[in-house]
C-alpha cells in the first residue's frame, strides 16, 4: 500500500487512492499471532468498533447472567417455616445455588444484594453507557461522514484499553466477593468503613471512575470528528440522524462524566481517608452525594437512549424507503434533550430534597418529555405511506416504538410529585427504566446490529430465524417487565430478595418472561455467529440506503472508500436517487408530479 504524502496532498485534498489495492479491513495479516497483534495495536476505527462490540456484548452476557439469578431468586419469597419445632428458611434459592441451603435470611439477603448490584453496575457502566457509541458509533461515524477515521485514532484505541482496564477492576470486585451498595453507590452504603468488603467497594468505584475516562475519550473524539472530518459538500443538515444523535450523546458524555469522576474520587477518598464529605457522622452530607450522582446519571440516561434513537431514525427511513419526516425536528430534539437532561436530576431525589426544589424539578422533568415525543411522532409520520419492508431491523424498530413509548409515558407519573411518592423505589420504577433502557436502547441496539451487520462483516444473517428470535425477545421482554408495573403500583418495593405471598404470581410470570428473553438472545447470538461462518455474502448495499456507509464495500476496505465520497443528495432522498450499488429496476423513482398537480 502506498500513500501519497506531501504538500500536493494538502493543496488538492485527498487522493482517494485509486492506486490503492485496498483489501477488506477484516483481511488477515499473517498467522494467528500476527493477527492478534494487528488487532491489539490497530488504530482503525472499524476494528476498534468491532473490539468494543465484542467487549460490551460480553459484559451484557455477564450482566444477563446476574439478571437471570435475580429472577431465579424471586420465583418464590423467602419464608421461615416451622418444621418439627425448628425454624427452617425456605426460598433462599441463590443460597442453595451457591452451596449453602441453611443460610440465614440475612445471609441470603446479602447474596441477593450483591447479585443485584453486580447486575446494575455491569449493565450500566460496562454495557449500556459505552454500548452503542463505542461499537456501532465507532464503526459508522467516520463512514457516515465520508472520513477515513475518527479525528484521534490513537485516543480511540486508548479508550478501548481504558474500558477493558476499568472492567477488569469491576470484575475483580465481583470475583473477590461482590459489592452490595447498589449501582448507585449511595452513601452511607458505600461509605461505611466497617464493611469487610472494603477493597471490593473501592475497586468497584474505581472501575466506574476509570470507565468514565473511556467515555470521555470517545465523546471528545466524536465531537471533533463531526466538526472537522465531514466530506466535501456534507453540511450539518445533510448528516444522517444517527450522526446527530452521536453528536448530542458525545456532548453529554463530555460534560457530565467529569462530575461523576470527582464524585467517585471523593467517595474513594471517603473510604480510604475518611474525609467525611458525604458521611453525616463527620458532618458531611449524603444527599449531596445523591445530587452529584444524579447530576451525572440523569444526563447519562440520555447517553444510553440517544444513540438508540439515532439507530431508529436510520432504520425507519431506510426500511420504509421514505424521506424522514421532520429531519430538523429530530436533529434539534436530540440537542434539546441533551440540554434539558442537565436540568432534571432532582427528580431522582423527590423524597430526599426540599419541597420547592422538588416542585421545580418536577416541572422541568415534564419538559424533557416534549422533544422525546417529537421524535416518536416524527417516526410514525415517516412510516405513513412508506413502502415498509418487514425484516429484522424493521421489526425491532416497530417494537422499539411500542416499548419505548410505554417507557417514556410511565416516566410522567414518576415525574409528578404526588404519584411519585407512591411509586418511588417500587417495581414501577424498575419497570419504567427497563422499558426505556431495554425496550429502548437494547432493542435499538439489536435493530442496529442487524441493520449494519452485512456492512460490518460482509455476511447476511438468516432473516426468518432472526425475525423469530426478535418475536421471542418481544414476548419475553413484555412478559418480564409489564408485570412489574402491576407489582409496583401494588406496593412491591425494589431491591428485596423476599416479598409478601400475594406478589408471587406476578413475580413468577416475570421470571418466566426472563427465561423466554434468554432463549431469544441466545438464538440471536447463534444466528449472528452462524452467519459469520455460513452466511451468504452480503452485497454492498443490501437495504438500499443512501448514507455514505452504503457506498463503501461490505465489509469496507481499510481506508473505507475507494474515492473520497462527495455529498450530492440528502441522506434520505429516496424519492430522487437510486441508491448506490443498486439496480434502478429495484428502486424505481417516484413519478414526477403531472403538470399542474399540487403536492400534498
Amino acid at each position, binding site marked *: *500500500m*502506498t*500513500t*501519497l*504524502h*506531501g*504538500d*500536493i*496532498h*494538502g493543496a488538492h*485534498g*485527498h487522493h482517494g487512492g485509486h492506486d490503492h489495492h485496498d483489501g477488506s479491513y477484516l483481511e488477515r495479516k499473517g498467522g494467528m499471532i500476527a493477527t492478534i497483534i494487528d488487532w491489539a495495536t490497530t488504530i482503525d476505527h472499524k476494528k476498534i468498533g468491532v473490539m468494543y462490540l465484542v467487549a460490551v456484548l460480553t459484559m451484557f452476557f455477564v450482566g444477563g447472567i446476574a439478571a437471570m439469578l435475580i429472577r431465579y431468586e424471586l420465583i418464590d419469597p423467602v419464608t421461615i417455616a416451622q418444621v418439627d419445632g425448628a425454624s427452617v428458611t425456605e426460598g433462599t434459592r441463590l443460597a442453595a445455588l451457591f452451596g449453602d441451603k441453611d443460610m440465614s435470611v440475612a445471609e441470603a439477603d446479602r447474596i441477593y444484594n450483591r447479585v443485584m448490584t453486580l447486575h446494575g453496575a455491569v449493565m450500566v457502566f460496562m454495557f449500556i453507557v459505552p454500548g452503542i457509541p463505542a461499537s456501532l458509533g465507532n464503526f459508522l461515524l*467516520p463512514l457516515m461522514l465520508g*472520513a*477515513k*477515521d*475518527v*479525528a*484521534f*485514532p490513537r*485516543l480511540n484505541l486508548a479508550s478501548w484499553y481504558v474500558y477493558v482496564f476499568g472492567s477488569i477492576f469491576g470484575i475483580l470486585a465481583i470475583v473477590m466477593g461482590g459489592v452490595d451498595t447498589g449501582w448507585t453507590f449511595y452513601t452511607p452504603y458505600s461509605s461505611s468503613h466497617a464493611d469487610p468488603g*472494603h*477493597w471490593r467497594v*473501592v475497586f468497584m468505584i474505581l472501575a466506574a471512575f476509570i470507565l468514565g475516562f473511556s467515555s*470521555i475519550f470517545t465523546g*471528545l*473524539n466524536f*465531537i*471533533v470528528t463531526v*466538526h*472537522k*472530518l465531514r466530506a466535501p459538500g456534507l453540511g450539518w443538515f445533510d448528516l444522517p440522524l444517527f450522526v446527530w444523535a452521536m453528536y448530542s450523546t458525545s456532548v453529554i458524555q*463530555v*460534560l457530565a*462524566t*467529569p*462530575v461523576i*469522576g*470527582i*464524585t467517585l*474520587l*471523593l467517595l474513594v*477518598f471517603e473510604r*480510604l*481517608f*475518611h*474525609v*467525611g*464529605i458525604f458521611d453525616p*457522622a*463527620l*458532618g*458531611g*452530607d449524603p444527599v*449531596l452525594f445523591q445530587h*452529584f450522582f444524579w447530576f451525572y446519571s440523569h444526563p447519562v440516561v440520555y447517553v444510553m437512549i440517544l444513540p438508540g434513537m439515532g439507530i431508529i431514525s436510520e432504520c425507519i427511513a431506510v426500511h420504509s424507503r421514505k424521506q424522514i419526516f421532520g429531519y430538523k425536528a429530530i436533529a434539534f430534539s436530540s440537542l434539546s434533550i441533551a440540554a434539558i437532561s442537565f436540568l432534571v436530576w432532582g427528580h431522582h431525589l423527590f423524597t430526599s430534597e426540599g419541597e420547592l426544589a422538588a416542585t421545580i424539578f418536577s416541572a422541568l422533568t415534564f419538559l424533557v418529555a416534549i422533544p422525546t415525543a417529537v421524535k416518536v411522532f416524527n417516526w410514525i409520520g415517516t412510516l405513513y405511506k412508506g413502502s415498509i419492508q418487514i425484516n429484522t431491523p424493521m421489526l425491532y424498530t416497530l417494537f422499539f416504538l411500542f416499548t419505548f413509548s410505554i417507557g417514556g409515558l410511565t416516566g410522567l407519573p414518576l415525574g409528578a410529585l404526588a404519584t411519585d411518592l407512591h411509586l418511588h423505589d417500587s417495581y414501577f420504577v424498575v419497570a419504567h427504566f427497563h422499558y426505556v433502557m431495554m425496550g429502548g436502547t437494547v432493542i435499538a441496539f439489536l435493530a442496529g446490529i442487524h441493520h449494519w451487520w452485512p456492512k460490518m462483516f460482509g455476511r447476511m444473517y438468516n432473516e426468518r430465524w432472526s425475525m423469530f428470535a426478535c418475536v421471542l425477545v418481544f414476548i419475553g421482554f413484555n412478559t418480564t417487565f409489564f408485570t412489574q408495573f402491576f407489582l409496583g403500583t401494588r406496593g412491591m418495593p425494589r431491591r428485596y430478595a423476599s416479598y409478601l405471598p400475594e406478589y408471587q404470581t406476578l413475580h413468577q410470570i416475570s421470571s418466566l418472561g426472563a427465561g423466554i428473553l434468554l432463549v431469544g438472545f441466545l438464538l440471536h447470538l447463534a444466528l449472528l455467529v452462524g452467519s459469520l461462518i455460513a452466511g451468504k455474502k452480503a452485497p454492498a448495499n443490501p437495504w438500499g440506503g443512501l448514507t455514505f456507509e452504503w457506498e463503501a464495500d461490505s465489509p469496507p476496505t481499510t481506508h473505507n472508500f475507494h474515492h473520497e465520497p462527495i455529498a450530492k443528495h440528502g441522506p434520505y432522498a429516496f424519492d430522487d436517487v437510486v441508491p448506490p450499488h443498486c439496480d434502478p429496476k429495484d428502486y424505481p423513482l417516484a413519478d414526477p408530479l403531472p403538470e399542474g398537480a399540487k403536492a400534498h
Partner: protein
Amino acid sequence: MTTLDINHGGDAKANRPYHQTYTQASHFRSKDEEFDAVKIGMWLFLATEVLLFAGLFVGYAIFRMMHPEAFANGSHYLDWKWGCLNTIVLLFSSWTIATAIGNAQRNEQKALRRNLLITIACALLFVGIKLTFEYMPKWSGWFLSIDPALSHYESSKTALGGMLHFVEGYGGKRPGSLFDYPFAENPYEPMWWSIYYCATGIHATHVLIGVGLISWLYLRARKLHFGPGHYNAVEIVGLYWHIVDLIWIFLFPLLYLIH
C-alpha cells in the same frame, strides 16, 4: 504502509528538522485542519477539567454555608503569603509557556527550550513550596508505617484497609476523622481540611502531570520537533497549563483570603 514522499526525497528530508517535514496524519486533509481538530479536542478536555473542579467548588460552597465558623477557623491556619507567592509562581509560568508557543512559531529554538525549562522549574517550585511550607508543617508529628505492630498504639489510626498506620505524635491540621487532632476549635473543622486537601491535592496532581507533559515537550524541542510548521503539542500543553493556573487562581482566594 510505506510513505512515498514526493516533495522531499529521502536525503533532503534527513537534513531538515522534523517540524519542516511534518505532514498531517493521513485522515486529515491539511495541516490546518489537523491543528484545528487538536485544539478543539484540547478545549473539550479542558471543559471536563473545569467540570471536575466544579464538583469541588460546589462542595466548598455548600459546606461553607453549613459550617461557616469551621471554615473561618480552618482558613486561619493557612498563610496567605505562601499562597500568594505560589500564585505569582504559577502566573509567571503561564507567561513563560505562552512565550514558548511564540518561540516555536518564530523558530526561536533556544528561547523555546529555555522557556520550557523555566516553566518546569516554576511548576516544581510550586509543588515544593506547597509541600515544605504548607503541607509538611501541618503533618508534623505523624509518620506513615506499614508495620501492623504499630496499630497497637492507642493514638494510631489505620487507613488504606489497614495497610497504613498513622501514628500521631502531637497532631497537626489534617483532614477527616482519620486525622482528628486535639487543636480543633470547631467540631466541623476537619471538614474544612478535607476540602482543602482534596482541592489542593488534586490541583497539585495536575501540576505534576503538567511537569511530565512539559518535560516531554522539552525533550522533543531538543530534537527540533517544533517550529513554525508544526507546534501542535506546544500549543495544547500550553492550553492545559493555563487551565491549571486558572484553577489555582480560583482556589487561592477561596481558601486563603476569605475568612
